[in-house]
């Protein structure tokens, strides 16, 4: 297993990665609570970015409604936990099932009826909005007034019920991100990955070499949905409250695509780098403004917008491809 993973990564890159991982593992000893929250946010975006990257970067399907999977994952596990005391670890299976069905439905409708490109993106937005409004009216889960998880004692960390201190969430999100990277690497190096890339590059040519593009696009949508739903589980148990307006919002869908686009679509480390850079810089901006006594709501988003604008005009493939060429880290990252 390790030998296979290391197959396409150069020694320099591998060392860098191991060092980074070690640094992240011991960070909680040196970092204050604020830095931990920032890192957790970075991992969250790195994770969701990886999940979205499967659909867009690997298979070329632009989804702008990915928040629907976050919302469904969040609500499913939150409800199971609050009403039936079911641990989020078990609830995750239900969350995955729900999002897989949802993703399969969206994918099936879209691909069967040949909805692609911009129309597909709009379709995904429509479904997410539909869910948002729907949940707003679902009084069983609190509707627009919100759904609240029982907040427990913070001095104890209970991994089984995901109640606890930030440090627990730190390692959880770090673990999820590492697992996502490993999983994506395995997938992209496999037959599945090759077929996805072929579909992304030229769907008709892919069909001409025997690839059932409908099936493989659907697989990409479903895997992406399932992975994203786990981010929803994290979201629910970390923030402890869910509002349809926030969790299904188009802003949520957009913010999770920023890191992979900034970092590099279709690459393995693009979303990670993107998350570190964007969130890191944004938080620096906010703290600087706060230190100057200025509180500007919306400044962070304007910053994201400008970063996105710059990257798409100057480095359209993202920062990571440019960086790894510069650093001579040549290894197969796509």
């Amino acid at each position, binding site marked *: 297993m390790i030998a296979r993973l290391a197959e396409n990564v150069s020694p320099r890159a591998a060392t860098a990665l191991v060092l980074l991982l070690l640094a992240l593992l011991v960070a909680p000893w040196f970092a204050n609570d604020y830095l931990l929250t920032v890192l957790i946010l970075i991992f969250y975006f790195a994770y969701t970015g990886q999940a979205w990257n499967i659909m867009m970067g690997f298979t070329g399907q632009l989804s702008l409604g990915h928040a629907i999977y976050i919302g469904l994952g969040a609500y499913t596990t939150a409800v199971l936990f609050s009403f039936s005391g079911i641990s989020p670890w078990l609830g995750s299976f239900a969350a995955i099932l729900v999002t897989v069905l949802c993703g399969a439905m969206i994918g099936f409708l879209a691909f069967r009826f040949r909805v692609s490109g911009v129309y597909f993106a709009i379709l995904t937005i429509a479904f997410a909005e539909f869910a948002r409004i729907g949940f707003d009216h679902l009084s069983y889960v609190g509707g627009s007034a919100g759904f609240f998880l029982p907040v427990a004692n913070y001095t104890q960390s209970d991994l089984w019920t995901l109640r606890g201190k930030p440090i627990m969430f730190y390692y959880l999100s770090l673990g999820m991100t590492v697992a996502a990277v490993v999983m994506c690497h395995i997938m992209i190096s496999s037959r599945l990955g090759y077929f996805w*890339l072929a579909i992304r590059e*030229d769907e008709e040519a892919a069909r001409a070499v025997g690839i059932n593009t409908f099936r493989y696009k659907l697989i990409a949508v479903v895997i992406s949905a399932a992975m994203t739903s786990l981010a929803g589980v994290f979201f629910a148990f970390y923030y402890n409250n869910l509002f349809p307006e926030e969790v299904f919002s188009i802003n949520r869908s957009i913010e999770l695509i920023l890191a992979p686009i900034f970092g590099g679509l279709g690459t393995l480390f693009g979303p990670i780098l993107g998350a570190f850079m964007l969130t890191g810089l944004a938080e620096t901006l906010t703290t600087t403004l706060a230190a100057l006594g200025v509180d500007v709501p919306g400044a962070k988003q304007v910053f994201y917008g400008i970063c996105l604008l710059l990257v798409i005009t100057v480095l359209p493939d993202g920062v990571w491809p440019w960086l790894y060429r510069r650093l001579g880290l040549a290894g197969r990252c796509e």
Partner: protein
Amino acid sequence: MSTLLSIDGISKRFRGLVAVDRLSFQVDQGDIFAVIGPNGAGKTTLFNMIAGVFSPDGGTIVLSGERINGLSPDQICHRGVGRTFQIVRPFPALSVEDNVIVAALLHRHLVPDARAHAGEVLRQLYLYDKRAQRASGLTLPDRKRLELARALATDPKLLLLDEVMAGLRPTETDRMVSILKELNRSRGLTILLIEHVMRAVMALAARVLVMHHGAAIAEGAPDQVVRDRAVIESYLGAETV
């Protein structure tokens, strides 16, 4: 000689334009069969029907005894048909090797096996040295051979070549011809090709079908066909004959 491909009375209309008009012919196992004709004769439409891009409005297409009209392109590829496109369509961001691996993965589910097979195919087409290059950076002759390599990696019984010589210089054309002859000789690969480059047609084809306005106007050995009156008329116009 058994019949590999049997085209029986197929037609295709595009909103009032008859692209292919009740065409019938057969290709035997191990043959090299050329389809020629002036532009707009319906040759690529014919190919697209065989390859499954669209289905004929009437008639049947039978491959090794199985009806394939109405199947999708990937299903037809599974049944042993490989095709190239008139305007080459490599997977641009992937390397030459990865382009062929994608195709090799059709029948070989493990990546290492597919890579090995891809390597063999690339060697046969003199592309092995360039296997790490990005497909988008290749010259036209190389891209044509990559297109061919990709189709070959799917282990086809029947190879459909759509103007594979277009844009090649005479030396490159000759090289392509010798590659195709070798493939036909060594593995008995049946080849159906659309071609305008007569040099290649004369060198390769055992039988030639001439199409004009969607219908067959002549069929036979190359030297017979090029002397056929109707054929000359269709290319040069009635006055010249």
